[in-house]
């Protein structure tokens, strides 16, 4: 996960990247050009702001914002929220929130995919609903059964190499 954040922190103008849970607990962080370590306070203040925004927009019947930014004279705070976590990026004065829009979306999507992959995809390649994974459109050497090196010994009926 830190590797995902580090790719974002290497973008020009990015000072700090932080992934927090919705209740404000820091999950992971990566430092860009910033020297200071302030992930705890940043996580607390950011989640408080996000909660405030949720409360403020609720009377209008709006869903919580998916993306928000706060642009100040000395930097910008950008938030991108997903169902499980919130990605926070602190930008320097010279960078604009639009500069990191795509990168943040892709990093958060990768984080979500990684999370779903770990928790939901079983070794028997079954989806959570119990349906078998559809066959890929193009056979590859990694996940197809047609290649010799991908054949695994059957633990019940076959012979193990040591036998």
């Amino acid at each position: 996960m830190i590797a995902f954040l580090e790719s974002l922190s290497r973008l020009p103008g990015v000072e700090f990247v932080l992934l927090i849970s919705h209740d404000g607990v820091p999950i992971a962080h990566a430092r860009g050009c910033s020297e200071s370590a302030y992930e705890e306070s940043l996580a607390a203040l950011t989640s408080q702001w996000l909660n405030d925004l949720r409360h403020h927009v609720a009377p209008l019947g709006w869903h919580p914002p998916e993306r928000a930014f706060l642009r100040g004279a000395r930097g910008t705070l950008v938030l991108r929220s997903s169902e499980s976590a919130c990605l926070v990026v602190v930008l320097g004065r010279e960078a604009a929130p639009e500069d990191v829009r795509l990168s943040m979306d892709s990093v958060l999507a990768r984080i979500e995919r990684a999370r779903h992959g770990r928790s939901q995809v079983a070794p028997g390649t079954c989806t959570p609903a119990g349906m078998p994974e559809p066959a890929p459109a193009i056979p590859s050497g990694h996940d197809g059964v047609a290649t010799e090196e991908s054949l695994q010994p059957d633990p019940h009926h076959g012979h193990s190499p040591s036998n």
Partner: protein
Amino acid sequence: MKFLDRILSYGRIRRARRALAADPSPRNYLALAQQYALADRRADAQRICVEGLEAFPENIQLARYYQRTRRSEREARLAELHRELAFSPRAPLWRELCEILIESDELTRAEEELNRWLATGDHPEAHYLLGRVLLARFYADRGRTQGRAAMAALDQAIARLPNDLRPLRAKLDFLTKIGAWQDARDCAARCLSVEPGTLELEGRYRTLAARAEGAPSIERALFEVERSGRLAGEEGGEGVRTSAGSVQALLREFATQPDVQAALYVRGSTALVQGPKGATAERTARTVQSILASSRSTGRRLGLGQVFQIQLEGSFGTLSIAPGEQDAGALLCSGPLGRGREEMLLGMAGLNAATAGSETAVHPGGDQ
């Protein structure tokens, strides 16, 4: 080439002057100012802008052009000072350079130059100017950290310039503005010891002495300023105001665009709303004001400086808010905001317009 340009510019300026004489409109004032600026006659360009602004005080384009010409003049002087400093660095040049930067609100550049100046030696004047920079930053941000830094820098300047009233006065203003009356009274007493018998200082001392009892400490006063975002005595801050008409024209222009759901201008507890009506308008205005308050507080706590844009995106569309010092413009649209609208919105903040008696005004804060 320059000679040719100058000859050609004479003709263009003459034509622009004739057009202005025939029709003294903001557009013609702007055209003549631009021609003067192109001919490198910045003083004339500024004079025309001032004349135009006297006739049309609410014209935003003229006001912006005037600021641009002033900025370009400042930049030219700064470049001269940098050249001069490279050959023969001396205190008056450093001081002028830093004062220009402070007055033009380029605090980071001013701080960098002051640090370069201080690296050449321990100059008391540089310490005083550094105190002014940090003070200006505190007045803009209103954060505790900035307040403490400003206080420390002013104390250093006072220690180095014990008989100079300027750092003492800056400290007195700072303490008065944050509401630390007891410390302000002590500072006024120190000012009087430097300049005894000054009537204005004696008056201030008496006022502060009357308020000193039960006054908060500096740290408590700074905390209160950070929390509320307001300096002492700023509750009814009345600055120069433009009329409600110019803001309403802008709001109407926004509201005519197809994907705009609401356009708002918020000042104090009053909001001008174009788009939604009745209870929805009131709820929207209340939401914008709440978002504004919590975002300003978050910005101060995070040390982001003065907040000048807040944007939320979601299934509801895009809500963009451009806060000024006392007011804010907001736009709710179903699609992306776009560059043009963003610039217009940022221009709306800081107009400081009158909102009373307007037909589209709602008072979402009225019952609080």
